[in-house]
Structure formats: C-alpha cells, structure tokens
C-alpha cells in the first residue's frame, strides 16, 4: 500500500508541527547554512564567469568594429553573460545539494516526519536564492567597476538585479527538478554541460542580427537564453526596452513555474512511501 506523505496525514498520524511557512523557513535555514559553509561551491562558480568576462571583454573587443554593433564598449554587451552563467552554476549547486540529501537518505528520513513537500521544495531553494543574490550583487559591482554604464540609470541597475535573481531562482528550480528526477549528484553534474551549451548557442557573443551563419541565428532565435541575455543587456545598452524586458521576465517566470510545478510532482513521488 502506498502512503502519500505529501498529502494530508491519515487519521492517527500526528499533525504537522508548525505551519508550512515555519517548516519552509527551517529547511531554508539549513540550506543557507550548508551553502555558505561550502566555500568552494561559492567561490569557483562566482569567479569563473568573472574570469571569462575579463578575458572575453578584452579579447572580443574587436567585435565592436563590426558595422551595426550596438555599443563601442564590448563589456557593456558582455556584462549579461556572468549573470546567466552564475545562474547555471546556482542550478547545479541546488541540484547537487538536494541529490546529496537523497543519496544520504536524509530525504527519506524527512519523509517519515510531518514536513510538507512544498516546504521541503521551497526551503531547499533557500541556499540557491542567497547564492543568486550575492552573485548578482558581485557581478553588478564588478561590471560598474570595469566601466559598464547603464543607459537605464540606477533604476535599470535595480531591475537588472531583480531579473538576475529571478533567473537564478528559476535555474535553481530546474536543478532541484533534475535532482529529484535522477537522484544522484553525478547525474545532475553530467547535465551541466548541456545547460552551459545553451549559452553558447545564444546571442551571448554577438547580437542576433549580426550572427552570420543562418542556422546559428535560427538556433539563437529559438533559444530562450537569448531573451534572458537580451533583457539584461537592454538595460545597459538600450535603456528601457519594454519588449526585451517582457520577453526576459516572461521566459524566466515560465521556466520558474514549469520547473517548480514538475519539481513539486517529483517531490510528491519521492515522498510517497511504499
């Protein structure tokens, strides 16, 4: 007989201790503490996109001489990249952390307690959320320090922070979904290259209208990562571009809703005791 512990507890079993909010906060606190204790997990994912930003910001500066390139400073164009790369690293951190809980049996033990599935899911993302916020602030400060200027002003910088944190949270939900589906950290890490490839196959290095190879331009056009990058980039280069922002926020929210929805279903089946 299968007992779904994510649903209301059957008669005779104890009622959940504390509200869903209390449970979520308790799990989130554990996730945040665990993330902040793993310095290797924080420093490398944060530094790697900055190294690429420093190198490619100079190495590709010749691209600004291509007729029609939207800015004279390649770093203005490239600053969106670290935010997306950082978000993908956050997704792996969130996924691997949860996979470790699955592998170590921690999640199984939790399934014997009255903790709700929703609290577990959102709480697990707490560490990823904090990491996403810290990364976004660091990338913004480094960008400004290296001469990136915002056509949309201070307000645009704040919107960029909000959007990048939303993107990090959406990717973290994807990481959690992968962990719940596959159950091992190795599998989550194995999928990371595929996530990273979506950056390469986007408008990350050149605007879509300047991509020469038609097939690559088509792939970049169908790749949602292009719109996440272009929304962040628009705040730096263009100013307030409603269409770019709507597409960026729209795709980030869509990823968040789909990944969280599927993760909730996967969590339910993980917490179902047979």
């Amino acid at each position, binding site marked *: 007989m299968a007992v779904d512990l994510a649903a209301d507890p059957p008669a005779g079993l104890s009622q959940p201790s504390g509200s869903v909010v209390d449970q979520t906060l308790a799990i989130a606190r554990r996730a945040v503490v665990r993330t902040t204790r793993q310095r290797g997990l924080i420093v490398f994912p944060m530094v790697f996109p900055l190294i690429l930003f420093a190198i490619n910001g100079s*190495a590709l500066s*010749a691209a600004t001489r291509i007729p029609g390139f939207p800015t004279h400073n390649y770093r203005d164009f490239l600053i969106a990249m670290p935010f997306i790369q950082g978000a993908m690293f956050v997704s792996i951190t969130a996924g691997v952390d949860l996979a470790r809980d699955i592998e170590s049996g921690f999640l199984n033990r939790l399934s014997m307690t009255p903790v709700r599935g929703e609290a577990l899911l959102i709480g697990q993302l707490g560490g990823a959320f904090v990491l996403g916020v810290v990364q976004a602030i660091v990338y913004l400060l480094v960008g400004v320090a290296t001469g990136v200027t915002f056509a949309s002003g201070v307000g645009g910088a704040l919107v960029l922070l909000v959007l990048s944190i939303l993107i990090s949270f959406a990717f973290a939900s994807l990481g959690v979904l992968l962990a719940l589906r596959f159950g091992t950290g190795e599998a989550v890490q194995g999928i990371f290259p595929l996530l990273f*490839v979506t950056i*390469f196959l986007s408008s990350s290095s050149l605007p879509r209208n*300047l991509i020469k190879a038609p097939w690559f331009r088509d792939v970049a056009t169908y790749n949602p990562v292009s719109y996440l990058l272009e929304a962040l980039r628009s705040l730096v280069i263009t100013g307030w571009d409603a269409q770019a922002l709507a597409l960026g926020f729209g795709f980030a929210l869509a990823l968040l809703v789909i990944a969280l929805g599927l993760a909730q279903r996967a969590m339910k089946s993980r917490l179902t005791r047979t």
Partner: protein
Amino acid sequence: MSRFLNVARGVAWRSIHNTLVNPAILVPSIIFPLFFLIAFAGGLSRISDVPNFHYAPGYTAFQFVFVFLQSAAFGGVFTGFAVARDFDSGFARRLMLSAPRRSGIIAGYTLGALGRWALTGTVVTIAALIAGMNVFGSGVQLLGLLGLGIAVNLVAALWAVGLAMFLRTEQAGAVIQMPVFVLLFLAPVYVPVSLLTGWIHDVANLNPVTPVLEAGRGLLAGSPVKVAIAFIGLIAAATVLSAFARRGLASAERAG
C-alpha cells in the same frame, strides 16, 4: 626496459578502456570541443568582417586550430582527473605496490591521454570538414599541425598527472584545469594578436600558447610561421613537466 613498457602499456590500456566504456567520461570530452567549435566558428564568424582580419582559409579554419589544440590540452587535463580519481578510490596505491617500474605509470597515463585525444581530435576534425573548413596546408604541414597537437597533449598530461599525484584527491580538479583553461583563453582565440587591444594584447604576446596557436594556424593555411619556436617551447615545457611529474610520483610514493 620491458618492465617499464609493461607497466606503461597496462596503465594506458586501462585509461583508454575506462574512457571508452564510461559515457560520463567519454561524452563530455567529445561534446565540449564540438560545441566550442560550433559556438566559435558558427556564432562568431562575423568577426572575420572586422577590418584587417586576414586569414585565407576562413574563420572556421581559424577557430578549428584553437579547438583542435584545446581538445588536445583537455585530453591531458581529463587524464589528470582520472589519476586523482584513482588515488581517491585507492586504486593508485595498489597500482604503485604492484608496478615493478613506477615511472611506467606516468608514461602509461600520458599514453592514455594521447589515446583519449585521438578520438576527440578525430571527431572535431571531421566536424570541421563537414562544416566546410578550408585546408590550404600540404600533407607535411598538416602532419606538423598534428605534431603540435600531440605535443600539447603530452605537455598538458604531464602537468595534470604530476599535479594529481602531488594532491591525490578529486577535489584538485579545479586546480589542475584552471591554469590550462586561462592560458588557452589568454591566447589570441577570436582574432589574430595584431587585432587585440589593451592588456589582452600584452598578455597574449607573453603567453607561450600564442606561438603554438599561430604556428598551427599558419600550417593549416599553408604559410607556416613560428613553427620552430612553437616546437622548441613545447619540448622545453615537456622536459620541465616530466621532471615535475616524476616529483609528483615520488611525493605519492612517500605518502604511501
């Protein structure tokens, strides 16, 4: 000598076998260079329209040489990961107990790295040719390019195997990989060095990878440049890193 060769052959066979039968190792080592080729040659091909960019075979060939040499370097780096994994699992210690000539272990791992790269390099080359890459170099010049790739693979493998033997943990992965990655990307990856500006121009001029990359591009284009400098630099690096790897092995022996 025969004991050295036996150890080297055994370790090399195991390294290549493990790569071929483990998709988690094999697939990323092939997929990553392919995506670099696609992203750089496909996505950045408009870079060739930058004023004063002159490379006769075209941008796909320009990027192919970088990806070809990069895959050679990472064939060596990934072998370092395998060495670290062998120490974590305890296999390396058992191997050192049973090997009659331990220096054969280093030779075996470096041969394994070459075998690993043989597959990746072939796949990348076929992909570039399918993508329409122009090849203007003669047969001898193309052999020269292959020689550069083998030398880069050897140098990277000696670095990675040596460091893995010093550190003896999989957590050393980032330390093994990062210097190679940074050195490669501080070379003129996207445009010739003459078109680089600012600090990256100065760094690229000092970077030992730059003459190797320029020699490779020259050989593919049929107009060799800096070939002697590139090979002398790689031989010198291989000599120094051989000593480094031997010291790494000695360190592992002392650790027991």
